[in-house]
């Protein structure tokens, strides 16, 4: 139950710095403790796959995995990343087991304008890791924090079906 948080980032001396893992690589980032993980990823680590949508925790576009669970990177401050592991959509693209799902997502028309896509891919992959054969209701619940304003949800849902985009 206890989270894997090292007690570094000590109060007092030195510049605030957080050491954590991004897509399997150790990173060390100096910065304001409240800097958004979203900005750290996009502007410091050049991982621009993660998108900013609303910036206030409503839309899910900036979803990344933290210790394997989907979180909103616009709401995670840098200092709380210390000792944790973060996976972005770029990291998921490198996972061989995710390849089949990503291909189905494209074939099924899961992508329309693309703004919500990275967040949806991250949340969907987290769901499939926990539940390889989710029901329609389970998919809808898992993706309820990700908004698609093209309202292309049917294509997204179809990409969970086995085989070609049904």
């Amino acid at each position: 139950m206890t989270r894997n948080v090292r007690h570094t980032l000590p109060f007092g001396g030195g510049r605030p710095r957080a050491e954590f893992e991004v897509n399997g690589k150790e990173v060390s980032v100096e910065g304001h403790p409240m800097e958004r993980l979203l900005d750290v990823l996009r502007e410091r680590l050049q991982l621009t796959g993660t998108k900013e949508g609303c910036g206030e925790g409503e839309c899910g576009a900036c979803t990344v995995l933290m210790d394997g669970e989907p979180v909103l990177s616009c709401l995670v401050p840098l200092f709380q990343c210390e000792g944790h592991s973060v996976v972005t959509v770029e990291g998921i693209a490198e996972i061989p087991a995710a390849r089949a799902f990503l291909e189905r997502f494209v074939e099924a028309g899961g992508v329309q304008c693309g703004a919500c896509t990275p967040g949806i891919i991250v949340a969907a992959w987290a769901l499939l890791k926990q539940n390889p054969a989710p029901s329609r209701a389970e998919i809808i619940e898992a993706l309820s924090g990700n908004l698609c304003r093209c309202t292309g949800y049917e294509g997204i849902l179809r990409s969970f079906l086995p085989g070609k985009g049904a």
Partner: protein
Amino acid sequence: MSPYRAGNPRTLDEALTFLGEIPDLVVAAGCTDLMVSDLESRVRQTHVMSVLGIEELQGIVREGDDLRIGAAATFAQIGRSDEVLKSFPILARAARVIGGWQIQNRATIGGNIVNASPAGDSLPVLLALDAKLEIAGPKSTRMIPYESMHVDYRKTALAAGEILAAVRIPLAAETRVQSFRKVGPRAAQAISKVVVAMSASRARDGFREVRVAAGSVAAVPVRLKSAEDALEGKWSKGTAAKAGQAAAGEVTPIDDVRSTAHYRSWVLRQIVERMALEMREGSG
């Protein structure tokens, strides 16, 4: 030395020491509200301490006569906890309608309480289940009824230097019938217009120990005592309607960006009546 200071303490002792030593230290949990207000105010907190890693704030376990839920327990953990599902199903249901999956993975029950939004979805549930709070201070730990926590709009009974360590729900409440309803613009990822939680012991002729609590209808989450009185004791045909009426008469909600006072009163009356009927029929 940097003007900013931040820390992730592992123990309550460490955290309480920091809190005593650093003026204006902001205590942060899942940050799902703090990051938004940080952005809106355009002023970043300069000294922050995370409570997410504090050992004493973890876990959901039976302890004596209570279920102890660590303040850093996330709504994802609460929503899937066997103990919570078995004893306090309305708390699990509330946990699963707070934000979406991503929010539930970060937002904590302690954060929901201390952030003290009148729209906090878990808060009426805690009122309906007679929850208590374990509050750690520099010298000792004290226990207060949850009902006395919210003293005014966004003001809590937490004193300077104190940290909310856990929520305790008396296991005696697990035999009560329980009901929870959230009314919002959509099922997920929405801030409530009205949220209601109820519990009561079932007697042969009606209900005893009735609790009716609501959120988003006043400056703080409130117990609706006249609705409770209306439901207490012998059940008759008009009981549920009377309770709904009493509930709506007891609060003066406001118009805001999410709803109107008129709608909130109307919907509060309707759902209190419906929930009472469902509890009576045993489907609440």
